[in-house]
């Protein structure tokens, strides 16, 4: 089997495994099956990236040649995102066992089945070269995600899930409307084919409207300010493991879809001209950076604080995109990857606190630095990454973002990026202050350090944050290849 033939299995394996999982009883087997499926999927994705970086891979389902059949078309950009998604799932799963046992004690078969569905949906979105197929996978992953969020033990999880459902459906519908418009105008759903046929018809308001719908639809899924309002509740009330997984993957895939349409399907020299995309994205990105960080500084719940921080981090990525240059896009892809690393580590640390204490409110973390030093040190170190301290992954992406801004002479953006980094210092500091500099009140129960099953995966991610802060070959290489693939029209046949 060549890598091209193997590639679709990174989507199919979790999909099939989810059916198996749904039928499995107990607590061990669903998890074990999921773990195997996810690892297989991640390994395939890991082999796909180097191959796709050299030549665009294409696989036609059922031997129906594209554009009629469904095609998987993979270049450096989607291979990079696919590896991120599958890799994050593989890293998060060992951590999941304990946490899920506690937070979702019953019907774990269904829970893990939903997780696998969500994963295969996300991977399907990423790898597919067919617009309608992307929509279908988007719906699969979204529906599964709503189910996952609703598993949260807090009653508000249901409402959060419901809100996300409404907004997610609006987003998916917008995407569908956009795709429909494109189909009407070109008669094709294949992305590469679309890119080829669009130039003839693109001076119509229908195509322009299609672009607008797709951007808003994906902006919603991406939680770009001001379309982010579903995110904080969803992240806060979902089971810890779901938050860990979503924070690293879901918004990233949405960003990828948006980029794929804006850059490959509509060429950037058209899409950034016909709509003031550059300005709009820059304003929304900066606003997201500020509003997210600002709100995060005042949150009493750490999970919620990190959720708002995610809104800010999405702002950095959107800002990188708005610069419309190879280095800007590279910065966006880099931050996409690095943010997944740091946020996953942070949410894992918080999830570990929840496992031990049962709450992630700031006042319940008081004094934990002494009793749970490993957990909170992991949090602090991952926090350094989100602040952007040198030798961490966060520094690398901010460095590239700043270079991209300077490259276009946008001095003020540099200032804004540094100021929002200082705001990150403040919200991370609040946790450190509570953990180490405040006393535990007598009423709060004493807790010990968390079990190793939670600590080891968390520390692996923390270590990755530092590893990718020092050895940047994989991340910078992958991100640059991805950016070049998008800007260089890697999809055109």
């Amino acid at each position, binding site marked *: 089997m060549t890598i091209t033939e193997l590639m679709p299995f990174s989507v199919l394996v979790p999909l099939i495994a989810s059916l198996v999982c749904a039928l499995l009883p107990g607590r061990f087997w669903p998890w074990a099956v999921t773990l195997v499926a996810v690892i297989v999927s991640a390994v395939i994705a890991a082999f796909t990236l180097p191959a796709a970086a050299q030549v665009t891979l294409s696989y036609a389902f059922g031997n129906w040649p594209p554009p009629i059949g469904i095609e998987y078309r993979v270049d450096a950009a989607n291979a990079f995102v696919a590896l991120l998604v599958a890799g994050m799932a593989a890293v998060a799963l060992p951590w999941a066992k304990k946490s899920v046992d506690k937070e979702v004690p019953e019907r774990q078969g269904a829970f893990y089945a939903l997780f696998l569905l969500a994963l295969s949906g996300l991977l399907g979105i990423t790898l597919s070269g067919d617009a309608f197929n992307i929509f279908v996978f988007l719906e699969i992953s979204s529906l599964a995600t709503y189910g996952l969020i609703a598993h949260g033990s807090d009653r508000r999880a249901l409402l959060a899930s419901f809100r996300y459902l409404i907004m997610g459906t609006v987003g998916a519908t917008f995407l569908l409307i956009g795709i429909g418009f494109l189909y009407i105008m070109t008669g094709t759903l294949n992305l590469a084919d679309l890119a080829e046929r669009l130039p003839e018809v693109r001076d119509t*308001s229908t195509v322009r*409207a299609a672009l607008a719908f797709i951007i808003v639809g994906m902006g919603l899924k991406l939680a770009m300010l001001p*379309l982010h309002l579903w995110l904080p509740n969803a992240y806060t009330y979902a089971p810890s493991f779901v938050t860990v997984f979503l924070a690293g993957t879901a918004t990233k895939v949405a960003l990828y879809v948006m980029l794929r349409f804006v850059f490959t399907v509509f060429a950037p020299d058209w899409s950034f001209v*016909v*709509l003031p995309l550059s300005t709009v994205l820059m304003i929304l990105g900066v606003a997201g950076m500020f509003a997210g960080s600002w709100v995060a500084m005042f949150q009493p719940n750490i999970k919620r604080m990190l959720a708002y921080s995610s809104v800010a981090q999405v702002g950095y990525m959107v800002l990188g995109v708005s610069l419309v240059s190879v280095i800007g896009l590279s910065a966006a892809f880099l931050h996409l990857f690095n943010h997944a690393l740091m946020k996953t580590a942070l949410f894992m640390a918080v999830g570990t606190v929840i496992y031990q204490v049962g709450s992630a409110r700031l006042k319940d973390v008081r004094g934990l630095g002494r009793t749970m030093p490993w957990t909170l040190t992991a949090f602090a170190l991952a926090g350094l990454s989100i602040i952007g301290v*040198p030798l961490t992954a966060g520094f690398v992406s901010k460095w590239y973002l700043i270079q991209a801004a300077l490259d276009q002479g946008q001095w003020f953006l540099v200032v804004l990026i540094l100021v929002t980094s200082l705001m990150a210092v403040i919200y991370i500091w609040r946790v450190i202050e509570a953990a180490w*500099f405040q006393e535990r009140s007598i009423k709060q129960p004493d807790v010990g350090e968390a079990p190793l099953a939670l600590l080891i995966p968390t520390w692996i991610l923390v270590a990755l944050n530092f590893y990718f802060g020092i050895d*940047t070959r994989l991340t910078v290489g992958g991100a640059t290849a991805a950016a070049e693939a998008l800007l260089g029209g890697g999809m055109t046949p």
Partner: protein
Amino acid sequence: MITSDWLHPSLVLIAGTLVLPLLKGRAMQAWMVLLPLAVLGTLWMAQPGEHGQMAFLGMELVTGRVDELAMVFGWVFGTVLLIGAIYALHVNDRVQHVAAFLYGASALGVVFAGDLITLYVFWELMVITSVWLIWRRKTEVSFNAGFRYLVIHAVGGVVLLAGIILFQFETGTTRFEQIDVDGPAFWLILAAFMINAAVPPLHAWLTDAYPEATVTGAVFLSALTTKTAVYTLIRGYPGTEMLVWMGAAMTLYGVTFAMLSNDIRRLLAYHIVSQVGYMVTGVGLGTALALSGSASHAFTHILYKALLFMGAGAVIHMTGRSRLSELGGLYRYMPWTFVLYLIGGVSISAFPLFSGYVSKTMIVEAAAIDQRAVIWLMLVVASAGTFLSTTLKLPYKTWLGGDSGLQPREAPWNMLLAMGIAAALCFLIGIFPGMLYALLPGAVDFNAYTMSVFLKEMQVLLFTGLAFCLLLKYVGGGPKISLDVDWLYRRGGPRLVGAVGSAIITTDRAIRRTTLEHLARLTAHVEKKHGRDGKLAKSWPIGSMALWTAIVLAMLLTVGVYRG
């Protein structure tokens, strides 16, 4: 960072420090003395040249640049780490020891950094490690002071990073040589260096925090942060005219505020500002003699200032008091501390035969050769002021003067030993300045022991003493604190922020309320019209989410559709 001919002293120190928490009692004490010795040994073996290159983000990092200038600071940092470690042997707080050694490792890292990225990393590490030397005093006052210290340096770090990024963007390199660009990069990096050098008005972090540090921590603090900044200034900004004046102003600012201080370590902290002022002036003058003067003054200053802080610290350790107005008459109980402190005092005052004399006079002489009359006079006034408060007022009010009724015991042996080593070095350098001059980059064409230098210095000092004796009753002091620039962020800032913040909150609330009211009306309207059961409509967040979606879509569509 390791090759066959290069072992980074910071690496040695960091690796050794990691072992420290595992040790106890005597073993820990022995390790604390061995570690600085190992660092000195590493320095001894260091070969001139560039070592430890690494690639990072497409730039070449040079983690080990060994030249004479770096070695001057390397030697004195290693020495003061040894002295400080001995002084702290009795302390049974591992966090402090670990912090102190890591802090020393970061300072060494800055000094040997051949590029700005490496420098920045160690620069920040210095802040994160040193703040624990303040916090471990474990009082609320020291926590707050340490926190202010942290915030100021965090801001300074961002300024430095911004400068480095611009510098790299404009020159395409991050090598750390003389900063030779125009525009913001030059000023940002300079500002960051000046914050760490405690140049007024950016100095208040020092005089605010150092007096609140632990007794032993203050010794390290007094030696490292400001002197790494002096090193970076010598390397990056020699001959910057502005620094001549800022430095001279610094010397006077420091001595004036020292006169107002009642806390003994705050008084000494103001004299750090003042003494670093001499070095900054030397950097600004930029001649070979002036730069040699700055480097050697940094060297001698570290030793005598550590000695002074050790003496003051011993008093605080034994009496639990730190205010001049509560001390007095201690010479009967702590005579050794007294005498050793006085050696530090005459060294900082630049008495002949003591270390300050052979370095400070070099800077003053460089100013004279440059024909800078006003600067020369300012520096001489500062000399008088230094003698006045560190060597006359402070010891007089602490050990002599009115009896405070305190009857402490003499400081423990390890404190005295550390002070003894520092005092011996002050004396040795004073007698054999050639040993110090031999370390400096370039030959030093200066002899402090000429009749004319000797005469001027002695006259200034002795007649300062005369004035002190005659005017003793007018010398200020008393149980008061004096305001400084830190007022701006301790009282002024919070007041301003409070006012602005409450204004923002009120506005924000008002905006939200009106928006929500409008939304409520909108939903009510929809509800009435469509006759839904109302549950969905009542959920404001979904309403507002949808509203935002509609707004963004409408914006884009408007532009898109009406464009053609």
